[in-house]
């Protein structure tokens, strides 16, 4: 019950007019930034930090503003995934798989509503977890060593073959290209540049956001250019402007399962929101894809990854606040801001600055409610966006992506790289190869390699360290079980279809 009184005192901090104002502003700006391809939480938070200094906000207010932006981006990223098939930011990538097909089938309003509610469920569960168990979870997470992280990534990649597309071989090919691209740059362990062609711009590797925007947005524009003016695609039909409750309710278990998976991924420092939404999607697919509807507009395929990425984003605040270990790029920026405001995140933060911690927690509850209210009525506006003819919409999207990517790095090279990825994306689409596994390979491959290399540094090259801990053994058992289940399901379905053919014949 102590927690309740602490949260109560937190609401007293959060409910000051200034903090409420900052919260609402953060939610709005965050949703907008998340929705625009190429602009994401890192831009938003980095741009607003000087603002918080300029206005001289205290650390609590600054953190409330920036966390509202962070949460808002997690909500907003789904919008362009669903409407344009272009992920607004990295964690929203899984939402394209079923969200865009839903939109194409006239279900845009439902897809937006389901993902909005799923975001709310995921984020709220994460905040409840944060308020009840933060210190305990943080202490548990430190027992996750490099070998265990490697096992976790093995589990993730073992499931990658099944995520998208008709032909698993093409999916694997795409994932492997992503893994190869992840090795570009200075090797952080030894400091040796790899595949950089002596170009200093490649020393930090390929930024996933640059690849993502190029692959999805630029290739979309190229595909559009290819079609002649007469052959212009018809605007997607929209069945209804506003969502139906009856479409949302059946996805409730998918949302809860996705939240659970995402939250665990978020709590582990070094995993993060992208892994959270990815794992949430594949688990949901494994569990519920009886009729093979995933990838063709299954509402549960929208609910699971969206609740997963929001739960992971909230979960990532736990290691940031209670250990001072950032789990993602955005939390790294938040951490730096706290330190420069003379707040030392770490084991003593909860004791020393309860006002800050509990004020933030209370604000996150409020931010979630604000975001849900903000997002549901906006669905009507966004679905009408589908009526905009593509020839008018895509140039605007292109302009925004260029501005967004340049804004991150101030580098023309990144723009060239983005166009290069656009061409790659165009070719891959022509060959009917899914783009999603490539981005996942690029996003997670670097972390996976570092986990392996660290484990090897610890053991001095002895491979047995990889199966030396109970955590990693459990994860490998799960992986084997998962693969066995996939094979069994495939064989069963195959027999079924054969049997059907026989009876039909």
């Amino acid at each position: 019950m102590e927690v309740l009184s602490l949260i109560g005192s937190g609401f007293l901090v959060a409910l000051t007019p200034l903090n409420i104002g900052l919260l609402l502003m953060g939610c709005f700006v965050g949703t907008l930034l998340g929705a625009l391809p190429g602009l994401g939480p890192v831009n938003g938070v980095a741009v607003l930090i000087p603002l918080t200094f300029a206005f001289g906000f205290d650390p609590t207010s600054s953190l409330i503003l920036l966390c509202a932006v962070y949460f808002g981006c997690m909500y907003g990223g789904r919008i362009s995934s669903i409407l344009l098939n272009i992920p607004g930011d990295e964690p929203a990538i899984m939402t394209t798989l079923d969200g865009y097909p839903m939109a194409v089938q006239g279900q845009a309003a439902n897809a937006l509503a389901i993902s909005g509610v799923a975001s709310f469920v995921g984020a709220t569960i994460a905040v409840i977890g944060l308020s009840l168990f933060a210190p305990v979870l943080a202490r548990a997470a430190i027992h996750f060593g490099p070998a265990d992280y490697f096992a976790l990534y093995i589990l993730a990649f073992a499931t990658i073959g099944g995520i998208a597309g008709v032909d698993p071989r093409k999916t694997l090919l795409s994932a492997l290209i992503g893994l190869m691209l992840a090795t570009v740059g200075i090797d952080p362990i030894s400091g040796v540049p790899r595949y950089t062609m002596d170009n200093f711009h490649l020393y930090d590797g390929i930024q996933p956001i640059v690849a993502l925007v190029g692959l999805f947005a630029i290739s979309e524009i190229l595909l559009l250019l290819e079609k002649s003016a007469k052959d212009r695609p018809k605007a997607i039909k929209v069945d209804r402007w506003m969502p139906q409750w009856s479409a949302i309710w059946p996805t409730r278990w998918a949302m809860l399962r996705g939240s659970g998976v995402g939250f665990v991924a978020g709590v582990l420092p070094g995993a993060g929101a992208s892994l959270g939404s990815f794992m949430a999607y594949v688990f949901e697919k494994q569990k519920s894809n009886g009729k093979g509807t995933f990838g063709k507009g299954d509402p549960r395929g929208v609910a699971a990854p969206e609740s997963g990425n929001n739960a992971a984003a909230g979960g990532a605040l736990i290691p940031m606040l209670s250990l001072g270990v950032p789990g993602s790029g955005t939390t790294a920026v938040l951490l730096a801001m706290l330190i420069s405001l003379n707040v030392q995140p770490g084991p003593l933060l909860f004791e020393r600055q309860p006002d800050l911690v509990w004020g933030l927690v209370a604000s996150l509850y409020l931010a979630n409610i604000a975001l849900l209210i903000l997002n549901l009525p906006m669905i009507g506006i966004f679905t009408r966006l589908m009526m905009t003819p593509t020839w008018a919409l895509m140039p605007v999207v292109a302009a925004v992506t260029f501005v967004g990517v340049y804004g991150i790095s101030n580098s023309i090279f990144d723009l060239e790289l983005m166009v290069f990825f656009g061409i790659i994306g165009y070719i891959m689409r022509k060959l009917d190869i899914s783009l999603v596994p490539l981005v996942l390979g690029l996003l997670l491959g670097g972390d996976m390699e570092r986990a392996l290399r660290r484990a090897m540094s610890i053991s001095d090259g002895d491979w047995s360290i990889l199966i030396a801990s109970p955590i990693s053994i459990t994860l490998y058992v799960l992986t084997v079980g998962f693969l066995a289940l996939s094979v069994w399901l495939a064989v069963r379905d195959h027999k079924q279809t054969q049997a059907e053919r026989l009876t039909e014949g």
Partner: protein
Amino acid sequence: MKLRTLTSMKLGAALAAAMTVTAVPASATECIAPSNPGGGWDFTCRTIGRVLGELGLVEGNVQVTNMAGGVGAVAFAMVAAERPADEDLIVATSTVGVTQMAQGRYPAPLETMRYLAMLGADVGVIAVDNDSPIMTLADLTAAMAADPSALVTGGSSGAGGWDHIRLLMVADATGTEDLSAIRWVQFDGGTDAVTQMMGGQIAVVSTDMGEIAGFVESGDIRVLAALSDEPIPAFPDIPTAISQGVDVTGYNWRGLYTGGQVSDEAYNAWVERLETLYNSDNWQEAATSAGLVPIWRGGAEFEAFVRDQAAIMEQISRDIGVIQ
């Protein structure tokens, strides 16, 4: 309806453009942080920029530009090629940057730039877990000298980075023969390394004090030695390595450089401005609260210091086989 949605998209684009403009200055003073937002160089630029503005030492605000890449190499290459004579440009660097230069990992030699000043330093520390049987620096160095590969060590830099080199300097000064046999694990930051140590993955952490101070205060870890001349003001009880008979210091200083073709007049004006900043309460307070020890070296003295440090670093890197 069409019109309205289009307008909202345009508004979005305009907003995005406006925000990007804030990151790209026109003519005002600019500080380049050669890292993503959040690192030590970013802190250097943002804090120095803020205090310069507060003290009225520059007109208007200082624009901070993040130009990540190659541990500072991308920004270094850009300044050398495009803005060598820009008198309104300062760039953050530190011991980490000089280590890179000394190991030949930047596109041009150290002398390409003019080094203005260092304004503070983070102190290197060697720490073990609170439950570790290693109680003193002498315990640690004896264990390493007996069997260099026995203990797993780690920190926030890769092999041959400053965290690694500092630890090897201690080992070298205390009789460890085969420095390359010491197992070193790279982590993404000091806190990452410390939490992995608390989880039992590694035995010893070598990193900057500033980042891990929270764990020292909470009693989760034990600092065996501070690699500074004097005890760290915030932690007077932590013994220095020197006080334990190991003559090694390992500061990670924070400072600034400017383009190589900047005039003497502009260079001297910058040094003077930064010295005023250094002596202000604003800077002393900001630096101390971020866990830095304020230290001043400016102008010609700092230039000489950077050259000396790079030469030492190059020698150590050669000795331990990081460079040929």
